[in-house]
């Protein structure tokens, strides 16, 4: 079972709430995904009035909320947003998203590190969205992060694991759970991430904008389970070419 912060998770598929055509579809998809951790943009939630439609559609025993700070541009704003979320949604968990570039939503490593440090001190369970940067991951660990969330490719791009070589280094070195966060476009991408040893994946766009989000959520659920199972069973090593029947060193046995 996956452990992050003070919680354990049976499902290694984390999901998001954006881009769905309606709340009912969102709810049905998230329920069929089996996901236990669902991220929601703080800016979409009505913090002033009770009964926000997004939050009320996520009211499910299994689902834990992971508020995200999407829209903030620096550490100061992010820390403030996390505190708002803690108050309004009664959770210490926060997905730290600091992307000052609204075009490709590229995460700012410097501000993210600063905010992680501060939020960890304030007792938050911090899950920062970052580039697939192995050094940054180690620095975040030292700063007290609860997990790292490197991207597979730009957010919403559905381009798959373009950063796979760096993800492998991160996974090899990490002492905290590694959640591959962005760019996962197909169940096969999710399975691949799990096969190389990611602890979880976060998928939103690929489910939300598919023609049948409920079916797609199930497909991702199965892919994540299958990828994890393959990782645990250990994949047979790949070979570039068949092994020669008369090896070069056979003369030694003669």
């Amino acid at each position, binding site marked *: 079972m996956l452990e992050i912060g003070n919680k354990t998770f049976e499902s290694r598929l984390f999901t998001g709430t954006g881009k769905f055509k309606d709340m009912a579809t969102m709810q049905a998809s998230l329920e069929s995904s089996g996901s236990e951790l669902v991220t929601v943009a703080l800016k979409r939630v009505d913090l002033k009035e009770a009964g926000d439609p997004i939050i009320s559609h996520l009211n499910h025993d299994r689902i834990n909320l992971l508020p995200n700070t999407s829209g*903030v541009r620096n550490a100061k704003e992010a820390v403030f947003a996390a505190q708002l979320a803690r108050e309004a949604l009664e959770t210490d968990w926060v997905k730290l998203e600091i992307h000052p570039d609204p075009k490709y939503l590229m995460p700012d490593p410097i501000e993210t590190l600063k905010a992680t440090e501060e939020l960890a001190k304030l007792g938050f369970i911090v899950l920062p969205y970052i580039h697939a940067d192995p050094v940054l991951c180690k620095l975040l660990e030292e700063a007290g992060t609860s997990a790292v969330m490197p991207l597979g490719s730009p957010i919403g791009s559905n381009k798959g694991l373009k950063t796979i070589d760096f993800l492998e280094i991160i996974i090899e070195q990490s002492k905290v759970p590694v959640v591959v966060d962005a760019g996962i476009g197909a169940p096969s991408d999710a399975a691949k991430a799990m096969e190389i040893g990611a602890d979880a994946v976060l998928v939103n766009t690929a489910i939300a*904008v598919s023609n049948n989000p409920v079916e797609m959520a199930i497909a991702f659920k199965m892919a994540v389970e299958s990828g994890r199972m393959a990782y645990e069973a250990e994949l047979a090593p790949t070979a570039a070419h068949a092994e020669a029947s008369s090896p070069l060193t056979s003369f030694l046995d003669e």
Partner: protein
Amino acid sequence: MSNFREIFDQQDWGSIKSSIYAKTKRDVEHALATSERNLEDFKALISPAAAPYLEQMAVESRRLTLQRFGNNIQLFAPFYLSNECQNICTYCGFSLDNKIRRKTLNPKEIDGEIAALKKLGFQHILLVTGEANVTVGMPYFKKALKQIRPHFADISMEVQPLDQADYEELIPLGLNAVLVYQETYHQKDYKKHHPKGKKSNFYYRLDTPDRLGKAGIRKIGLGSLIGLEDWRVDSFYTGLHLDYLEKTYWQTKYTISFPRLRPFSGGLEPKVAMSDRELVQLICAYRLFNQEVELSLSTRETELFREHVMKLGITSMSAGSKTNPGGYAVEPQSLEQFEISDERLPSEIEELIKKQGYEAVWKDWDMSLEKY
């Protein structure tokens, strides 16, 4: 720091125009096939040569929009504060020489409008005024923002261009976005359509997005008024402007509108008409050129057009708009800036958006995130 005018001054309207009209089928097919489209591809997509490819453009535009923005359409309402104006603009209902009763909302009236807009469900609003720097200048804006901010999630403004220092003062008061349409990038015609008032200064207006970018605004709205000049050339300039701004002020978001000249009492007939088909071509061309830019459609357009076009690249729409100060509650009967075409209530628009398979998004920002 540089300004867009340095790029603008190197351009020539006539050569851009002939280069757009010289685009061929081959150019259009190349623009459709490539995944990284540049300004030359954009020219091909807005050219007459692209007309036979409209369906293909629409399919790709829809795909790109869904991928980036999901099944969402944001809703906002214009909030007219004043129709006082010292400018003469040949196409505008608020023009100084247009004999209408002038009105600027006082704090009590602003409260009335706030209540009415909130009752309709709006969280994102666009404050609009004419240009009357004495009565509706910085002191008025500051006061109005302070009064309005606590009630809404996102505040944009479409008022006269201001100095950078003014924007720097307004942003911490809750100003999130500023829309400033160049109207036309045709310098000579600009002068003709803006003969009097501060607005007649072409370059001051042209530099406004630069001033906004330097002030650190979150979002800038661009556009040209369709009908004043050849829309293809004006739209190319808009694309060029967008391209420059995105690279220069990379932390800012951008939104584009394509207002078609609408009739008002005593107004100007469009010099260059644009058909519905051509507007769809333009919307799709913007999307194919730039996957991230927001594209906004107003109630100037008809019900039928809006229903269909919302699926082809649009990301935000106004609904139930009143284009007169006090139009929602205080003085619903007064004269509007322009006639709107889609008069349905916001709740009806929300229903319609749902029917098209989209979620109507009323809130996508939170003022409390603005603290720093």
